[in-house]
C-alpha cells in the first residue's frame, strides 16, 4: 500500500487550495450561512475557467482522485461548495448518457461554473423508497410534448439553479424499476414553482412543484422508461461525492475554543480530541480507498457505503461531544457574543444532522454492506 498523492494530484491540490484562499474569506463563508445558499459564484467560475471542474467530473475513465481532492479541500476550508458538487454529479451523468445537445448546453454550463443544477428526486411521501415516487410525465398526443406534474422535496439550490434533474414516472405499473424517465429541465420552464424549506442548520432547501410543465424529447436523459439505469449511475456518483471530511474543521474549531478558553490542557478534552483525530484518519482512509477503487476502474459500491456510514456517524458523535465539552458557550450560535469558536461548534452539531440522511441513509448503506459485502440475505 502507498499513501502519498501522485505528484500531479499534489500539484492540483495546491492549485485548488490557492483558489479557495483567493475567493473564499470569512465574509463569503458568513454570507453563505446567512442566506442558506452554499455557493460561491467566483470560486465556481474560477474552477470552471481553470478546467478543474471538467477534470473532477465523475465517470468511467475519469479522475476520481481529482474529484475527491476538490471536495475534500473545500470541506477542510469550510468553503461553500455544495452547489458545485451537485453540478459535477450531473455533468458526469450527462457525459455518460447525455445527448450531444445536452452536453453542449447543460453540461457545458455546469462545467463552466456559471450554471447550477438541483436534484428533483425525493417526494413528500418518501425518499429512500425512490421507486415509489408519483411525479408523472405523460405525452400530449397532439404536440408530442411531455407534460410533467408532481412535487419534489429537498431540491436544494433550486432557487439559484438553471436546471433541474428530475425523475418522473412515464408508465404506470410494470416492474418496480421500470417505467421511469429522467428529464433535465430549465428551471424557468413555465409551471415550476419553488417554496423554501428552512432547516435546523443554516442550509436553505426547497420544495418544488411541477404543474403541467412542458418538455420536449430533447429534455430526456438516457432512454424513456429506462430512467432507473440513469438513476443508478447518478446515485453512485452522488455517493462518491459524499462528504466525509468534516472532522478536520470540527477539530480545528474545538482546538480554537480550547486554546481561547484556556482549557486546552484538560485531559478530558485532550483524550477526546485524539479520538476525533483517529476517526478523521479512518474517515479519510476509507474515502481514499473508495476513490482508489473507482480510479482502478471498478465501481465502488460497498466501499462508499462504509466510508459514509463511518464518517457521518463519527461527525455527529464528535460534534455533539464538542458542544457538551464547550459548556454553555457551546450552545451559542454563529454570530452570538461569546459563542464557543464563534458559534461554529453549535453549527457543526446542526450541520451534521443530515449527513446520515442525504445521499443514502445510514440504514440503506448498512443494508448495502450487509447484503453485498457480508453476503447476508436480503431483508426487505
Amino acid at each position, binding site marked *: *500500500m*502507498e*499513501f*502519498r*498523492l*501522485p*505528484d500531479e*494530484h499534489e500539484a492540483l491540490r495546491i492549485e485548488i487550495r490557492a483558489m479557495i484562499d483567493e475567493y473564499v474569506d470569512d465574509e463569503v463563508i458568513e454570507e453563505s450561512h446567512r442566506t442558506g445558499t452554499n455557493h460561491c459564484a467566483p470560486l465556481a467560475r474560477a474552477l470552471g475557467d481553470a478546467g478543474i471542474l471538467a477534470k473532477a467530473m465523475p465517470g468511467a475513465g475519469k479522475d476520481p*482522485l481529482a474529484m475527491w481532492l476538490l471536495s475534500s479541500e473545500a470541506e*477542510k476550508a469550510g468553503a461553500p461548495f455544495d452547489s458545485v458538487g451537485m453540478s459535477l454529479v450531473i455533468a458526469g451523468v450527462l457525459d455518460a448518457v447525455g445527448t450531444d445537445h445536452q452536453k453542449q448546453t447543460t453540461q457545458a454550463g455546469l462545467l463552466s461554473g456559471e450554471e447550477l443544477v438541483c436534484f428533483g428526486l425525493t417526494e413528500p411521501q418518501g425518499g429512500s423508497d425512490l421507486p415509489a415516487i408519483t411525479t408523472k410525465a405523460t405525452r400530449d398526443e397532439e404536440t408530442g410534448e411531455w407534460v410533467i406534474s408532481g412535487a419534489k422535496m429537498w431540491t436544494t439550490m433550486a432557487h439559484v439553479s438553471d436546471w433541474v434533474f428530475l425523475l418522473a414516472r412515464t408508465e404506470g405499473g410494470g416492474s418496480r424499476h421500470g417505467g421511469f424517465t429522467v428529464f433535465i429541465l430549465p428551471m424557468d420552464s413555465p409551471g415550476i414553482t419553488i417554496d423554501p424549506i428552512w432547516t435546523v442548520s443554516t442550509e436553505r432547501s426547497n420544495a418544488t412543484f411541477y404543474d403541467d410543465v412542458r418538455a420536449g424529447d430533447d429534455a430526456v436523459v438516457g432512454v424513456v422508461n429506462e430512467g432507473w439505469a440513469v438513476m443508478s449511475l447518478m446515485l453512485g456518483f452522488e455517493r462518491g461525492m459524499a462528504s466525509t*471530511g468534516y*472532522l*478536520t474543521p470540527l*477539530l*480545528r474549531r474545538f*482546538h480554537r475554543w480550547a486554546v481561547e478558553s484556556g482549557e*486546552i*490542557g484538560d*485531559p478530558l478534552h*485532550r*483524550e*477526546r*480530541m*485524539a*479520538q476525533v*483525530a*483517529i476517526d*478523521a*484518519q*479512518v474517515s*479519510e*482512509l*476509507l474515502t*481514499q*480507498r473508495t476513490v*482508489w*477503487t473507482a480510479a*482502478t476502474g471498478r465501481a465502488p459500491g*460497498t466501499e462508499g457505503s*462504509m*466510508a459514509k*456510514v*463511518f464518517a457521518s456517524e463519527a461527525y455527529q458523535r464528535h460534534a455533539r461531544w464538542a458542544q457538551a465539552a464547550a459548556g454553555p458557550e457551546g450552545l451559542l450560535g454563529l454570530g452570538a457574543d461569546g459563542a464557543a469558536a464563534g458559534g461554529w461548534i453549535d453549527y457543526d452539531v446542526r450541520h451534521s444532522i443530515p449527513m446520515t440522511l442525504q445521499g443514502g441513509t445510514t*440504514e440503506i*448503506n*448498512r*443494508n448495502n*454492506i*450487509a*447484503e453485498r*459485502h*457480508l*453476503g*447476508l*440475505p436480503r*431483508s*426487505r
Partner: protein
Amino acid sequence: MALDFAPSDDQDAIAEVFGAFFANECPVEVVRGAEPLGYAPELWAKLRGMDVPSMAAAEAAGGGGATLSDRVVVAEAIGAAAAPVPLIEHWVASSLHPDAAVLAGDLIATVALHPARADTWRLVPGGAIADVVVGVDGDELVAVRSAPPMVAPQNHAAAPLSDRSTREGDRVVLGPATLLEPALDQWRTLTASALVGLADRAMTIGVDYVLEREQFGRLVGSFQSIQHGLADLPPLIDGARFLSHKAAWAHDEGLIDGAGVIDMDDGNITEFAPLAAMALVQASEAATVSTDRCLHYHGGYGFSLEYDIQLYFRRARGWAGILGDPARERLRIADLLWVQP
C-alpha cells in the same frame, strides 16, 4: 506509484504463504491445546525452520530484511489464527538486542512494555516463556537472560504473561532508556495488525454462524437488526487495517522523529509515532466491537467454551489491554499531535 490500497506483490506473497501456514499448522485445536499457558512450542519450532524469527533483522546481520510493511501482513495472519507464539514481541526485542541466538529463534526474546519497578517488570507479554527480556530499568535499556517460569497467572486471553526480574540472570546494558519508545511504536503497529486479523476472523465466524442458525423459522442472519450490527464491522476493521499499513508505510519511508508531517489544521498526518498509536487504538476498538457483537449473535452458545468465538473475544481484550488503558494511549496521542500547554 502513489495512493494504492492494493497489497504490494511482496505483501500478497506473504499473505498467501502465512495464511496457508497458519491454516495448516495452527488450526483452532492448536490454539485450544496451548491454553492455559498460551504457547505452542511446536508451532514456534516450525516458524524457526522457516527463519521467521529473524525475518525482521537486516540481511547483513543474518536476517531476512523484511520491512515493517511486510511484517504487518504476517501479524494479521497471526491474529486471524489466534496463533500462540510470541513472534511480535520477539521481533521487537531482537531489533533492540540482535544477539545471534535470539535472531535464530533458539532463544525467545520479549519486550517489557513498561519500566521496571522494584527490580521487576510486571506482566511481561511472553514473559512466561521467553529466555530473554528486553526492557527499561531506571535510565537504561537492558536485556536480561534468565530461565522462564513456563507458567502464567490465569488471565483473560490465556496469554503467556509473567513478572520478570531485572536483576536475576545475565544482564546486558543496551543503551539509554529512550531507545525503547521507537521500538514500542513497531510493537503498536504489529499488535494493531494482529488485532485486525483477529477482528476480521471473528467477523467471519459471526457471519458464518448467523447464516446457519435459525430462529422463528428463519436464518438469524436474515434479521435486519443483526445485519446492521454486523454491517458496522467492516469499516471499523478496514479503517484499522489501513491505519496500521499507513503507520508501517511511514516507518519504512523514514517518516520518523519529525521527518513526517503533523498538520492538524489540514488533517494531514504522515509521522510514524502518532500513526502507530492511532492504529493500535483503532484496532483495539475494532477487535472489541467485532468480538462483542459476534459472540452476542451466537446467543447462549457464545458463552460456552465449546464455540470458537470466545477464544477471539478473550484475546481481543487481552492483546489490546496489555499496554494499558486505551484512554491513556489517546492522551499520549494528543501530546504527539498538539503541544502540551
